[in-house]
C-alpha cells in the first residue's frame, strides 16, 4: 500500500521534476561559461579552502569569545554587546571581501595571460565583456560563500541588540559595493601590462590600496555603529548613502569598461565605451555637487562646491593621462564602425579612438561638466564671490588643457621609440609633473630654503598654490589667469593639426575602404577587383 502511494506520488511529481530539471538545465546552459569554469577551478584551489577555513574559525572564535566576555561582565542584555560583536564580525568579513577577493580577481586575470589560456578563450564565441563579467561573477560567488558563513553571526548580533536592521543593511550594502569596486580595480589593474615587473609593482599597489580601503571602511563602520544610530531617520543620510553607492557603481563600471577595452584585440575600437562611462562618472560628481549645494542651502555651498570641483578635476585629469596612451593606428575595423551620419560625426567623433581626439574629449568633458556645476551653484544663489568660482573653473580646466597638452606632446615624441600603453602614460605623467611641479619646488628649496612663501610666476603651473591664491581674498586671481589661460590654450592649440589629421583619417577611410579593399570574397571574385594571385600558374587544371 505504502509502495503504491509512493509510486503514485512519484508519478504526480514526475512532470514537475522533469520541468524543474529542464529549467535547471536551461539555467545552467545560460550561465557565463567562465563563471562555471572558475567556480569549478576556484573552489578546488588551496587559496579558497585556506581563506574560507580561516574565516570560519575566526567567526567561531569571535562568537565564543564575545559570548564568554559578555557573560563575564554580565552584559548579556547590554546594548553594547550586539554592536561590538557586529564590529568584530565586520573586521573578520572585511578581510576576505576587501582584501582577499580583489587580490584573487587580480591573480585570476593575470594567470590567464601568464598561462597563455586567454588567447584560446579570446578566439571562442566569448566576448571580452563576457570574460570580464565571468571573472567578476566568479569572484563574487566566492564572496557570497564567505558571506553565507557570516549571515547567522550577523543575525545573532541583531538578536543581542544594540544594532538596528537598517544599520546592518547599510553596512552590508556599502561594504558589498566597496568590495565590488575593489574587485573591478583588481581586474582592471591585472590587464594593464603583461610585464612581470610591472605586475609585481601593481600587485603591491593593489595590496596597499585594499588595506587602506579596509581600514577606512572599518573606521567608517565603527563611526556609524557608535554614533549613527539616529542616521536612519535622516533623509540626508539615505541620500548620501545612495550617492556613495551610485558613485562606487559608476567607477566600478568604469573599471569594468577599462578591463574590457584592454581585452579587445588591438586594432578594434577600445575607446568609445570607456569614454561614455567617463562621462557618466563625471555626471555622478556633477549630480553630487547639485545635491550638496541644495543640501547646504547656501551656508557652505561655495566651499563644498569647490571640493566637488576638485574631485571632478581629478577625475578628468587622471582620465586625460590614461587616454594619452591610446593607439594612433586607425584600422579598417575602427573606420567601418565610425559614425557616418552628420549628427553622429559631430557628436560621436569625440568618442572615437585616438590620443588627440581623447585629449580634446577630456578637455571638453571637463569644461562642460564644470560649467554645468557652476550653473547649479549660480542657480542656488549661494555665492559670496562670483569671480572666485569662475576663476576656479577656468583654472581647473586650464590645468587639464596644459598638463594634457604637455603629456600629449611628450607621448608623441616617445611614440617613435616605444609602443604607447598605460605604463608609458604613467611615465609621461611622472615626467611632466617632475618638470612643472618638482623642478620649481627643488629650485625654491635650493634658493629660498622654504618653498611657496610668496607667489611667483612659475607657481602658475602648480594647482595647489594657484587654487590657494585664488581662494585667498587678497590673491591676484586675474593675474594668475592672464598667464595660465593663454599658456593652456597654447598647450592645447598645438595639437589642433593632429586633431584634424585624426578626424580626417576616420572620415577618409570610411569612403575609401570599399574601393581600396574588397569587403567580401564575392567581391574578390569579380574580374575588376580580384588581386592577382602570385601563384596562379601553380593551380591545377581541376581548380
Amino acid at each position, binding site marked *: 500500500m505504502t509502495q503504491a502511494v509512493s509510486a503514485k506520488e512519484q508519478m504526480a511529481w514526475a512532470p514537475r521534476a522533469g520541468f524543474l530539471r529542464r529549467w535547471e538545465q536551461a539555467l545552467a*546552459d545560460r550561465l557565463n561559461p567562465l563563471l562555471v569554469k572558475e567556480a569549478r577551478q576556484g573552489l578546488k584551489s588551496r587559496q579558497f579552502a585556506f581563506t574560507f577555513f580561516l574565516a570560519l574559525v575566526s567567526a567561531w572564535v569571535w562568537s565564543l569569545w564575545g559570548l564568554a566576555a559578555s557573560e563575564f561582565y554580565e552584559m548579556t542584555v547590554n546594548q553594547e554587546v550586539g554592536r561590538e560583536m557586529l564590529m568584530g564580525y565586520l573586521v573578520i568579513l572585511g578581510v576576505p571581501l576587501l582584501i582577499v577577493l580583489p587580490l584573487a580577481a587580480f591573480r585570476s586575470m593575470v594567470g590567464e595571460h601568464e598561462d*597563455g589560456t586567454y588567447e584560446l578563450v579570446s578566439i571562442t564565441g566569448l566576448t571580452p565583456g563576457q570574460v570580464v563579467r565571468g571573472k567578476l561573477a566568479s569572484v563574487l560567488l566566492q564572496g557570497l560563500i564567505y558571506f553565507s558563513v557570516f549571515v547567522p553571526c550577523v543575525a545573532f548580533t541583531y538578536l543581542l541588540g544594540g544594532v538596528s536592521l537598517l544599520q546592518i543593511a547599510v553596512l552590508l550594502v556599502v561594504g558589498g559595493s566597496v568590495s565590488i569596486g575593489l574587485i573591478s580595480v583588481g581586474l582592471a589593474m591585472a590587464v594593464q601590462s603583461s610585464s612581470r615587473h610591472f605586475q609585481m609593482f601593481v600587485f603591491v599597489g593593489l595590496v596597499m590600496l585594499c588595506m587602506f580601503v579596509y581600514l577606512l571602511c572599518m573606521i567608517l563602520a565603527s563611526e556609524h555603529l557608535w554614533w549613527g544610530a539616529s542616521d536612519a531617520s535622516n533623509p540626508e543620510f539615505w541620500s548620501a548613502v545612495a550617492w556613495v553607492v551610485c558613485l562606487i557603481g559608476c567607477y566600478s563600471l568604469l573599471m569594468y569598461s577599462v578591463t574590457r577595452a584592454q581585452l579587445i584585440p588591438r586594432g578594434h575600437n577600445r575607446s568609445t565605451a570607456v569614454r561614455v562611462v567617463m562621462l557618466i562618472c563625471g555626471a555622478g560628481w556633477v549630480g553630487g555637487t547639485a545635491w550638496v549645494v541644495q543640501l547646504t542651502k547656501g551656508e557652505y555651498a561655495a566651499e563644498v562646491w569647490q571640493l566637488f570641483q576638485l574631485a571632478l578635476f581629478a577625475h578628468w585629469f587622471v582620465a586625460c593621462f590614461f587616454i594619452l596612451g591610446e593607439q594612433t593606428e586607425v584600422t579598417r575595423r575602427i573606420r567601418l564602425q565610425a559614425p557616418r551620419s552628420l549628427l553622429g560625426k559631430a557628436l560621436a567623433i569625440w568618442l572615437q579612438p585616438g590620443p588627440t581626439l581623447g585629449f580634446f574629449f577630456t578637455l571638453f568633458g571637463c569644461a562642460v561638466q564644470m560649467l554645468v556645476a557652476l550653473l547649479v551653484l549660480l542657480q542656488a544663489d549661494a555665492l559670496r564671490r562670483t569671480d572666485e568660482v569662475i576663476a576656479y573653473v577656468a583654472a581647473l580646466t586650464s590645468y587639464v588643457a596644459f598638463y594634457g597638452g604637455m603629456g600629449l606632446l611628450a607621448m608623441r615624441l616617445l611614440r617613435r621609440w616605444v609602443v604607447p600603453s598605460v605604463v608609458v602614460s604613467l611615465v609621461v605623467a611622472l615626467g611632466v609633473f617632475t618638470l612643472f611641479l618638482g623642478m620649481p619646488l627643488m629650485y625654491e628649496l635650493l634658493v629660498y630654503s622654504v618653498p611657496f612663501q610668496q607667489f611667483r610666476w612659475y607657481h602658475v603651473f602648480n594647482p595647489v598654490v594657484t587654487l590657494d591664491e585664488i581662494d585667498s581674498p587678497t590673491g591676484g586671481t586675474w593675474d594668475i589667469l592672464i598667464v595660465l589661460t593663454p599658456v593652456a590654450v597654447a598647450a592645447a592649440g598645438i595639437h589642433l593639426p593632429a586633431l584634424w589629421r585624426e578626424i580626417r583619417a576616420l572620415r577618409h577611410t570610411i569612403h575609401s575602404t570599399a574601393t581600396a579593399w574588397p569587403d567580401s570574397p564575392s567581391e574578390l571574385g569579380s574580374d575588376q577587383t580580384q588581386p592577382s594571385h602570385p601563384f596562379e600558374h601553380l593551380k591545377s587544371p581541376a581548380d
Partner: protein
Amino acid sequence: MKRSQPAIEVYNLHRFFGTTRAVDDVSFQVHPGEVFGFIGPNGAGKTTTMRILATLDQPSFGNAYIAGFSVVEEPEQARLRLGFMPDYFNTYPYVNVWEYLDFFARAYGLRGARRHQAVQEVMEFTGLISLAEKPTRALSKGMKQRLCLARALIHDPDVLILDEPAAGLDPRARVELRQMIRHLANQGKAVLISSHILTELGEICDSVGIIEQGRLKAAGPLELIRQRINQYSVLQLEVLSDPQQALGLLQQHELVGEVHLRNQHVLWAQFRGDKVQRAQLLSYLVNQGVKVAEFSAQEGSLEEVFLSLTQGQVQ
C-alpha cells in the same frame, strides 16, 4: 576532383612590426578537404600568418577569409568556423579533461544535449574517454596535445589551423596525430599545418606553402612546385635490349637531363616533367623498340624542394 569555394583565402597579407616585415605579401588558398603544409625556417612568418588567420593579430595590409568571413571585418564569424591549435599546450590546472572541454563547448555557445554530445565525440575521436576525470595538470605532453586538438574540434569547425602540432611528440603519437589529421581532411575540413618535420608534412599534405623572411616562395601542390623550380625527378630504367640505344634516345629527349648507364641493363636519367610526360616518354621508348623491363621515378623530397627554395635567412 571538383573543388568548392576555398575554406582559407589569404590575399596580399602584410604584417609589419616596426621596420620588420614579418609577413610580406603572402597569398594562398586552402580548399575544403585539403591539408596545406606551411613550411619555413624559424622567424619566417608562419606563426604570425597563422595568428592573423586565427584572429589573434591584425594584418597591416591585405585580408584573409575563413570560410568566406574576413578575419579583419568579421572576426566573430570567422572564429566560429575555425579551430586553432597554437604551438603551446597550456591548460587550466585545476579542471579535469571533461570540464576543460565542457568549458570550451560552452564558450562556443553549445548548449544542453548538443554540448554533451560534442564533448563525448571529440573525446572519443582523440582517445581521451578514459582520461575524462583526470586533471589536466596530470596529463602527459602527448595527451595534452590531444586535448588541445579536441578543444580545437569541439565546435566542429570548417577550418583547422595547427601550429607545430607534432613538436616534442614521440613517434607513435606523431603517427596517430597524422592519422587524425588525415581523417579530419577526409571529413571535408581544410587543415593548415606548420611543422619543421618535413618528411611528415610530405606524407600528409596535399599542397604546401614555403615561406622565408615573410615572403611566400612557393605555394601549391608539391609536384607543381617541383616543376616550377625545374627540379628533376630521377628515372630508373631496366632495359633488356641494347642499353646504348636507350641511352641515345634518352639523351636526345628534351625533358631529360643527364643520363648515366649504371650497369649493363640499368640506366638513371634526370627527368623534368609530370606524370603524363613520363608516360609519354615510356611510350616513345617502347615504340622505338627499347624493351623496358622496369620504369620507375624517384621524385625529390619535400626537404630537397625546401632547401632549393630557401636560403636559410632569418630576419
